[in-house]
């Protein structure tokens, strides 16, 4: 764990002496904020979103502590609320506890150890709660993505299947071999599209669930391997491939993620070419310096229109109906880079080409 952060405590009391005494006693153990009235307390809450415990005196001129807690919890529901009160107010305290406005109360006059143990307990409660909130947020985003997946499955899986089915039906009645050949080729494309979707889905889950594994990355070999795969698949036909790798230092990173990033960017560069152009090219440049890898992938293809450029990293977003695309590729790229603390930028002009620039910091040696 990192060096534990001091617990941030807000104490509200209309008697300045109490505030001063409190701060003097606890300022070494906690980060203490004090307020002598309600508006001051709100100003602190506004300015410090990381307050974990609030202590408030019950008897104050403009509002009681219970009233304050009751109204502030709508806006600031995360800090744990504790009331400081004398015995005479016990009825209203019981009521407040039962209605969930306060976590516990501290009886006046308090001792240092009363306060200390109450704050520690409250902070534990705060941490557990914040963790739950965080987990719930993660769950919600996982559910949202699952929803998108379920919807996309009908289109991205069922779509190509139904196309093939329709084509088969049609092919049965065809006599002309040339026509038949055309339709077979189109069926083949549909199958590739389906396959690509499945591969991307697999990558997505590998990234989401997998732990990063840091190892020494040799960019020269990596680019050679990936390029060989594209060449074998015939994806480089009639496209000039230029690669320029400058790596003098050792670079530690997660190879699966980096491969995935390069693979997707290159795949897009080879895919979204202008078919009629004679001098099509894809240019990949990688430079490793000061433990930072800078990767640029440049093409002179169809380009991406301004109005789509902000959405290209969105899940299932497709900026073009040209070629096959699952709408997952660049989403996966961005996801992988986020895990590696990397960044990606894109510059593109329609009918001139697109350049992606990726910056990935290497893992520092000797850390784990």
């Amino acid at each position, binding site marked *: 764990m990192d060096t534990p952060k001091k617990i941030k405590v807000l104490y509200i009391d209309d008697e300045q002496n109490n505030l001063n005494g409190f701060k003097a006693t606890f300022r070494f153990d906690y980060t203490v904020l004090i307020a002598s009235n309600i508006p001051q307390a709100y100003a602190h809450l506004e300015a410090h979103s990381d307050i974990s415990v609030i202590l408030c005196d019950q008897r104050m001129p403009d509002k009681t502590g219970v009233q304050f807690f009751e109204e502030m919890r709508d806006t600031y529901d995360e800090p744990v609320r504790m009331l400081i009160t004398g015995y005479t107010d016990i009825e209203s305290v019981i009521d407040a506890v039962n209605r969930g406005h306060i976590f516990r109360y501290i009886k006046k006059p308090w001792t240092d150890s009363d306060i200390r143990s109450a704050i520690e307990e409250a902070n534990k409660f705060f941490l557990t709660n914040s963790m739950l909130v965080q987990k719930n947020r993660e769950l919600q985003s996982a559910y949202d993505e699952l929803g998108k997946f379920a*919807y996309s499955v*009908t*289109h991205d899986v*069922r*779509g*190509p*299947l*139904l*196309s*093939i*089915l*329709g*084509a088969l*039906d*049609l092919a049965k*009645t065809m006599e002309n071999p040339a026509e038949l050949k*055309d*339709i077979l080729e*189109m*069926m083949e*494309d*549909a199958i590739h599209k389906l396959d690509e979707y499945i591969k991307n889905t697999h990558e997505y889950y590998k990234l989401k669930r997998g732990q990063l594994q840091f190892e020494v990355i040799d960019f020269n070999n990596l680019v050679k391997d990936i390029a060989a795969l594209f060449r074998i698949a015939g994806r480089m036909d009639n496209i000039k491939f230029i690669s320029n790798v400058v790596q003098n230092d050792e670079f530690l990173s997660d190879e699966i993620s980096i491969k995935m990033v390069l693979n997707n960017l290159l795949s897009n560069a080879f895919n979204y070419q202008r078919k009629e152009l004679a001098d099509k090219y894809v240019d990949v440049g990688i430079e490793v310096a000061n433990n930072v890898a800078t990767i640029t992938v440049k093409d002179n293809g169809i380009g991406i229109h301004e109005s*789509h450029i902000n959405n290209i990293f969105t899940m299932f*977003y*497709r*900026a*073009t*109906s040209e070629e096959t*695309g699952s*709408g997952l590729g660049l989403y996966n790229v961005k996801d992988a880079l986020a895990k590696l603390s990397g960044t990606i930028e894109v510059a593109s002009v329609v009918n001139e080409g697109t350049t992606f620039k990726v910056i990935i910091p290497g893992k520092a040696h000797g850390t784990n």
Partner: protein
Amino acid sequence: MVQTKLNFIVVDDSKLDCFIAEKIIRNTGISDTIKSFLQAPEALEYIKALPEHQRTIMLVDIQMPLMNGFEFVEAFEKLPKEITDNYTIYIISSSINENDLVRVHTYATVKQFLNKPLTSNNLAVLLA
């Protein structure tokens, strides 16, 4: 039954689905012209630019990049009534999402939802 020939417009981002639709429509023998569009905005531009409008059947996919089938229908319904009156839209999709199916019925210009793939049988049924 002597019928005047119909025009067809197919809007689908899948090349194969456009090809299938064109073939099946042509096989019916009742088509005058068939135009396919891989991108919905292009179909819209095409309709807007036509000097005159004849009876036309449109087959429109739902899930398409750039502009989906619903957005296309919404944009289409903004055209003058004397244009839209000439067109009958069928939404044809692989979607089995209930929201999609329900939404289809909210558009005045959409006649019916059709499941993919288009076959000569179900085309014959809707033309009957």
